[in-house]
């Protein structure tokens, strides 16, 4: 007596794979031929002919084997893949350019000197970005200590208190994340710099960055706090804890790594912010450790200044600065990802 063997018709067979591979190869060949035979030329023409032919070929294959619906399905599958490719292509190009152009500007003196005795157009072994790195660190640190309490309090209001302002505050936080960075800069200029301090300083820049950072911190923290099981809060209350003790001793520690992720994402959001710094920090060329007095340099400002100087050395400087900035953001992002994989600790 024979039993019916279960089959898995949805898994691609070797024949399917070979057929797909053949279609791919044939499409490349045809599009090469087309680009060579017709007046079309260039990478763009090649790219588009290839994907048009591939879409058609996949569609035709589907049509011949299963009919019209399958043809549409196969063609759409190709188009959707092209969409994903188009999304990733710019980022690949950006990373490749930053690395290939930036590494030339990475010299030992880059990290030990500032630009007080050099101009962007000088040879690359003169001057560095010490002032910019120290300035960016100071700015980020200041905005961190201002925005994290406000951001986390906002998140706590939305998750723990759930008062009658919850809906409007959610809406406002969303709206705040769309505030253009230049508007944040103008606001600090009009509200603090002109009437009170009357001079460029790092603190002004940090204030503007705080405005841009709060929504990121608030929204990420809210998501994290929502993931903390309700049981933990009930357990805290059942043991006689007040709400304050429950939040401070149970909810926040449980959400710790998630909250750190929120801070890191906030820092990544503002580390490369340029426009408000152009208005507020004055962009000094000397290392300045005092954020409350005198212009302060920062990586984005340095990149901007070098890029606008225009000579070959200056542009290389700009790419080197961008490389440092991108590496910084990549490190922050990887750390955040690593931490958020274990969202609830203990």
């Amino acid at each position, binding site marked *: 007596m024979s039993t019916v063997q279960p089959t898995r018709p949805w898994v691609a067979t070797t024949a399917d794979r070979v057929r797909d591979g053949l279609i791919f190869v044939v499409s490349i060949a045809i599009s090469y031929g087309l680009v060579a035979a017709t007046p079309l030329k260039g990478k763009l023409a090649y790219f588009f002919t290839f994907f048009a032919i591939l879409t058609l070929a996949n569609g035709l294959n589907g049509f011949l084997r299963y009919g019209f619906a399958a043809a549409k399905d196969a063609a759409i599958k190709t188009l959707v*893949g092209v*969409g994903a490719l188009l999304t*990733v292509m710019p980022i690949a190009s950006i990373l490749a*350019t930053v690395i290939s152009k930036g590494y030339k500007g990475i010299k030992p003196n880059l990290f030990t000197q500032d630009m007080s005795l050099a101009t962007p157009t000088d040879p690359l072994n003169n001057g560095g970005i010490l002032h910019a790195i120290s300035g960016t660190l100071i700015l980020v640190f200041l905005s961190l200590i201002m925005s994290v309490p406000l951001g986390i309090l906002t998140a706590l209001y939305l998750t723990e208190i759930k008062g009658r302002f919850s809906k409007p505050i959610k809406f406002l936080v969303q*709206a705040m994340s769309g*505030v*253009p960075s230049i508007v944040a800069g103008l606001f600090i200029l009009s509200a603090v710099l002109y009437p009170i301090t009357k001079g460029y300083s790092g603190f002004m820049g940090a204030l503007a960055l705080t405005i841009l950072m709060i929504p990121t911190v608030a929204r990420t923290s809210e998501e994290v706090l929502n993931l903390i099981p309700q049981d933990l809060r009930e357990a805290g209350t059942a043991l006689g804890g007040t*709400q304050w003790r429950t939040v401070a001793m149970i909810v926040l520690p449980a959400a710790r790594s998630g909250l750190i992720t929120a801070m890191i994402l906030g820092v990544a959001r503002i580390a490369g912010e340029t426009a408000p710094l152009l208005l507020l920090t004055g962009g000094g060329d000397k290392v300045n450790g005092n954020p409350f007095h005198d212009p302060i340099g920062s990586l984005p400002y340095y*990149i901007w200044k070098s890029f606008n100087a225009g000579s070959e050395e200056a542009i290389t400087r700009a790419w080197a600065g961008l490389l440092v900035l991108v590496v910084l953001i990549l490190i922050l992002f990887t750390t955040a990802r690593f931490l958020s994989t274990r969202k609830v600790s203990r």
Partner: protein
Amino acid sequence: MLSMTTAPAPREITTQPRRSDRIFRRVVTAGGLSSLVILSLITIFLAYRGFEVLRQEGLRFITSSQWSITTDDAGNVVESHFGLAAMLVGTILCAFIAVVIALPISVASALFLNFYSPQWLKKFLVAVIDMMAAFPSILFGIWGFLVLMPSAEYWAKILNHHLGFIPVLKIAPYVVTRSPFVAGVVLAIMIIPIITSVSREVFSQTPLDRIQAAYALGATRWGMIKAVVLPYGRSGVIGGAMLGLGRAMGETVAVFTVLNIVFQVNWHILLGAGGNVASLIILKFGEASPYEIKALMAAGLVLFILTLMVNAIADLIVKKTGKSGR
């Protein structure tokens, strides 16, 4: 004899929060209201600083495109005209081009991530796209200027060559450098991650039973997407596009590097003359007199209100997800 110990007085049972809790709730509420405070302060201060210019120019501030200021030797303002029309048209034009380019690509890649991609690739791509959203705008600006612009100009010429009969695609005089089209392409690349992640989120909320019902009725994958996923996620995708539009309107540095600012309303997207409110502020800020700074504050206010409105509409539309569809 055992001395009588007095029993502790029974604790009063009450639903009133303790004092520590009252303080806690007040502090948290105060912190929670910070977004409201900051947003209102922005509006108040920009309006206050820009008031003089707004009153003097009236409606001309958004209908005329002249931007000039003359001062005498003592630095007094003799004559001034501030109009944002060209800048506003340019801002909306660039943002619109960006959304038109970015939307189909984003929806395609969101569909790919949710319904076509293998798990390992999906994880990797989501990480990459999220990271791209955090890249600083100055990076896009410089990359756009030095790497993308030569290609984008070539595309503009091809577009003009084949579709030049469409009015907005005319180029006269023949200048294609630093056109709104180039700025739109750069902005599109910047907002693709935003629209993609909103769409992906919305598509992934599609009820599984509807998806399985479609498959059970014999639908192909595309048939299922067309009948179930797209109608369900439509409002979410539109909201995501609006969010991208708002981001594109407020973008400063990236646009400033690739756009040629001209104080004249220009609807020809391939012509190298455009406008942008945020870039205007950066452009004029350096050598602006105190009076012109006030005009820039007013311009900032207009930009702020514009982006706020777009964002608010986007938010409302995204929230409606799932109410449409079959």
